[in-house]
């Protein structure tokens, strides 16, 4: 069972904590024994004959009295109060079904929206394919995922573009205390809504959006490495946009509008500018 026997000393730790100070992170695969140290089997584990084994691929997290395995891959598993980005997949008389990249679709009832809607008028507000920022309210024991659009920073996402990343890497996209997402927003002049389900909504100048996408790809590839925030900051700072993105687009970018200066989009969101950038703060606070 290989390295699965090293003792885990980090009593506290969060899923997808930052790569610093993680010299004792233990990767386990399904079927490998988890060092239990008298703890009970938590999520991502099972017990046979008094021994605890991992049921998913992930990192061992002792959380007395339980030891759990935090998955490193897989679909988004909804948690109450998570902000997620959903895509409308079906419109019914009183509700919409949202694909939130979870195991199930999530119904968004019309009472969970800021709008006053009559029966059968749901399709005048959201249609199939629209993207919305919603918050997970509760997971019923039937597995039904209740979501609401009422709340700060929630609502229909208009314009902009979506990017996806593994949900396990979202904490790295946000960074310690929101440092990563703030530096990305500042360097690119883009508004970003981070969904805990691995979807990111990005709006801003075209070059900025491309740059955000590259930064996300960098995070995805190097998410396990140390010093990631610095690396991304360096990437964001190093290349003037016009040089870097010439290779993506045929014509040079002179005729484009220069990207908005970062001051217009302070990390907390410009007042009156948009309801969404506040939202990108909320998951950051979760992380702390």
């Amino acid at each position: 069972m290989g390295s699965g026997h090293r003792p885990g000393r980090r009593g506290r730790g969060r899923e997808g904590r930052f790569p610093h100070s993680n010299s004792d992170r233990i990767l386990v695969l399904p079927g490998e024994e988890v060092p239990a140290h008298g703890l009970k089997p938590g999520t991502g584990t099972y017990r046979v004959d008094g021994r605890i084994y991992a049921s998913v691929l992930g990192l061992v997290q002792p959380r007395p009295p339980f030891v759990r395995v935090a998955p490193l891959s897989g679909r988004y598993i909804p948690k109450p109060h998570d902000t997620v980005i959903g895509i409308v997949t079906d419109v019914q008389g009183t509700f919409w079904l949202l694909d939130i990249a979870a195991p199930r679709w999530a119904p968004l009832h019309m009472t969970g929206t800021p709008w006053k809607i009559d029966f059968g008028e749901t399709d005048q507000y959201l249609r199939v394919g629209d993207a919305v920022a919603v918050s997970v309210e509760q997971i019923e024991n039937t597995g039904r995922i209740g979501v609401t659009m009422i709340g700060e920073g929630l609502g229909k996402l208009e314009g902009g573009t979506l990017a996806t990343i593994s949900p396990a890497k979202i904490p790295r996209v946000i960074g310690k205390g929101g440092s990563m997402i703030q530096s990305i927003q500042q360097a690119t002049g883009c508004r970003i809504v981070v969904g805990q389900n691995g979807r990111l909504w990005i709006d801003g100048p075209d070059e900025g959006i491309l740059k955000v996408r590259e930064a996300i790809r960098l995070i995805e590839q190097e998410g396990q490495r140390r010093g990631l925030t610095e690396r991304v900051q360096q990437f964001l700072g190093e290349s003037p946009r016009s040089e870097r993105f010439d290779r993506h687009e045929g014509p040079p970018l002179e005729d484009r509008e220069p990207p908005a200066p970062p001051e217009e989009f302070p990390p907390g969101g410009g007042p009156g500018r948009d309801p969404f950038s506040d939202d990108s703060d909320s998951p950051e606070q979760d992380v702390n």
Partner: protein
Amino acid sequence: MGSVGAKDVPQLIGPDGLRIDGRRVDELRPLRIVAGALHRADGSAFVEWGANKVMAAVYGPREVHPRHLQQNNKAIVQCRYNMAAFSVDERKRPGLDRRSQEISKVIAEAFESVIFAEEYPRTSIDIYIEVLQANAGTRCAGLVAASVALADAGIPMVDLLPAVAVGKVGGHIVLDLKKEEDNFGEADLPMALVPQSGRLVLLQMEGHMNREELSTALDLGVKGCRQIYDRMKQALRERYAVDPTPSSAAPMEAGS
């Protein structure tokens, strides 16, 4: 197999006890596993095993598509094993045939017995296995690929599921048949093992073996499965390497 006249059977085990490709009777073909080979799927793997090339993709847990298949206490496990038209010497007629239906079914059932399906009621876990090049043992290669893909997709399960075929060739019990051995040998016994518990969750046999031979074959197969299990774990560890050791990461940071 009985229809092949004795004189037509090539000599599959040489006087030195080696097989036609120079392997010992208990030796596996070279095996390469790549976890996470596809981007769109929730989990995926590519397996090259001897001359077999197999791609597996896993989606889910996700909404069940014909709704009536949905089960409200657990996830359903669906599998599609498919051979590409170009995977064999003679062009294979594309699409479902009886053989691929059977293999899909036994693979789905093997995985049902290791996946914790109750964790995701009313959903479906879909496994797609595409055989790009076949050289005997594709159901085992498909199982190995699908199992790595399931782990890559974060599906909770008892264990990975290594699989291998054992056969009887020229009177010898041999591990991991290749095409000629499968075609001209006396028996073929594919199996899949749950290493954690030692249970077999897939066991099929074609041909004839006596009781002792079967018992030897099972022992040999379990040994082979354990070797394959190590390779599967290695492939997943490579993909999910937690940060490099501090000593190797530090110089890079200093440079940056």
